[in-house]
């Protein structure tokens, strides 16, 4: 191939396919991508610094706003970290409700993934179908917490309110309809030959590279590494549930897409089991109004969010405010492989790769 003079194409920060404020500087030779430089920080809201001036309970809404596509998952990570720090034991019923809403938000996040992949690759109709089904989850969140998207439903030591009666028929009918929805996505989106051509063998990430870069979540599993924190380092009541961890073989965009679709099915299974086993009883543990964990204690707690391993590192100085809160953001770390998987590809593959890495910039930039 003839090498010509390289030139730069800026994708973002204002670009419909960058999922928020992501800026990718693609260095091109003809139509081939020589290198891709990722610029993050356009949504840096100084969340970690704000945490130092908020009490432990006041930070819960900020945790929800980290990953706004699946707002229950970062909240779960944060409240469990504080509970670990202060030694709070959560009532059984609250644990089950937490699992149900967390898995619902994982499904909602993956639905947005499927929809935004479709719209990024030019299939606007695909997005409409996914958002139609996601609205049913939003309805359930609104029933339980009063907010559609960013629920802040969890509290330190429990949840804010018990599930209303109308929640159960809604979630049951949703879980029963879920296989049908997924079959529809397969027929409409993954059955489309254009989408298959644009995803298969695009952005191949080997298992070795994925582990070396610290990639976690569905992106890691798509590369064939069988690792899921819900099973391998369980938190909460996850050991009680039976589910399969889907993995891919090639680590290309297609596998990243298919792994997420299968994860939606598995989340449905978990919700079914949780609804079956859910006991009645208290939903809130006794937590002091002003929570002052012991001085010098620090914890690191990690949960499997829809993007990967989401960790919270809390340091206490004995006051009612944390001394330091650090968020291990999976989106940020997953984004760092973007140059690696884009090199040698075409310009349109950059868009596919951004979409299938599924970064959420609010969490990446914090």
């Amino acid at each position: 191939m003839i090498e010509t003079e390289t030139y730069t194409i800026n994708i973002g920060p204002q670009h419909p396919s960058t999922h928020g404020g992501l800026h990718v500087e693609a260095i091109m030779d003809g139509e081939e991508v020589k290198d891709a430089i990722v610029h993050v920080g356009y949504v840096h809201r100084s969340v970690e610094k704000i945490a130092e001036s908020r009490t432990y309970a006041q930070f819960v809404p900020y945790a929800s706003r980290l990953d706004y596509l699946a707002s229950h998952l970062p909240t779960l990570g944060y409240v469990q970290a504080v509970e670990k720090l202060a030694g709070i034991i959560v009532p059984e019923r609250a644990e089950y409700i937490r699992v149900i809403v967390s898995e619902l938000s994982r499904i909602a996040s993956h639905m947005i993934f499927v929809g935004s992949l479709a719209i990024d690759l030019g299939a606007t109709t695909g997005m409409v179908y996914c958002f139609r089904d996601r609205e049913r989850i939003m309805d359930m969140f609104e029933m339980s917490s009063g907010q559609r998207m960013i629920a802040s439903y969890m509290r330190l030591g429990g949840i804010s309110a018990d599930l209303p009666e109308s929640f159960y028929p809604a979630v049951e009918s949703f879980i029963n309809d879920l296989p049908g929805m997924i079959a529809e996505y397969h027929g409409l989106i993954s059955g489309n030959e254009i989408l298959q051509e644009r995803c298969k063998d695009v952005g191949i990430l080997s298992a070795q590279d994925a582990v070396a870069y610290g990639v976690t979540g569905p992106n890691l599993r798509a590369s064939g590494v069988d690792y899921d924190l819900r099973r391998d380092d369980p938190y909460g009541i996850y050991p009680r549930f039976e589910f399969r961890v889907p993995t891919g073989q090639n680590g290309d965009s297609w596998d990243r897409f298919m792994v997420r679709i299968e994860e939606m099915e598995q989340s449905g299974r978990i919700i079914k089991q949780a609804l079956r086993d859910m006991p009645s009883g208290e939903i809130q543990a006794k937590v002091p109004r002003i929570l002052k964990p012991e001085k010098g204690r620090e914890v690191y707690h990690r949960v499997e969010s829809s993007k990967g391993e989401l960790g919270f590192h809390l340091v206490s100085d004995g006051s009612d405010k944390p001394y330091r809160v650090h968020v291990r953001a999976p989106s940020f770390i997953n984004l760092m492989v973007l140059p690696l998987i884009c090199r040698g590809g075409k310009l349109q593959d950059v868009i596919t790769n951004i979409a299938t890495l599924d970064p959420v910039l609010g969490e990446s930039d914090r």
Partner: protein
Amino acid sequence: MVLNEADTRDGSSDVEQLEKHNIIVTTLEKIWNWSRARSFWPLSYGCNCCPIEMMASGAARFDIARYGYEVFRASPRQADLLIVAGPITLKMAPVVKRVYEQMPSPKWVLAMGNCATSGGPFRDGYSILPGADTLFKVDIFVPGCPPRPEALFHGLLELKKKVERGDY
């Protein structure tokens, strides 16, 4: 058209006479505003939670196309409505400003959500601008964190009234 003598005999003005023949007299500016208010072309810009609600308002259940505002444009040069959805960080501020300046006039700005209205929950942060109105003139503020799609529609309909009045 030529008015005949019978039309002017009752002492009504020329304009009233024209209306009798189903001809409406107006100014060009009024016609333009009437049509502008019914077909905003929003720019698909956003950088946090609010754009997800913006996408939801474009999707099946809420369907922004009912109001004629569904033509989301990726290029600022084709858009006339900037929906500032999400917080404006110090790093993003020059980009938004430039995007705004690239839009052709007449253009309107709708600040969606608490972050774009006032900085919202992140107002205390060291990297956040306290609202979009520190950068350019904002026509409509839609509060909420994030606002529901219905709230966005309400904001758009208020903006429609404003544009129809020519008040911008």
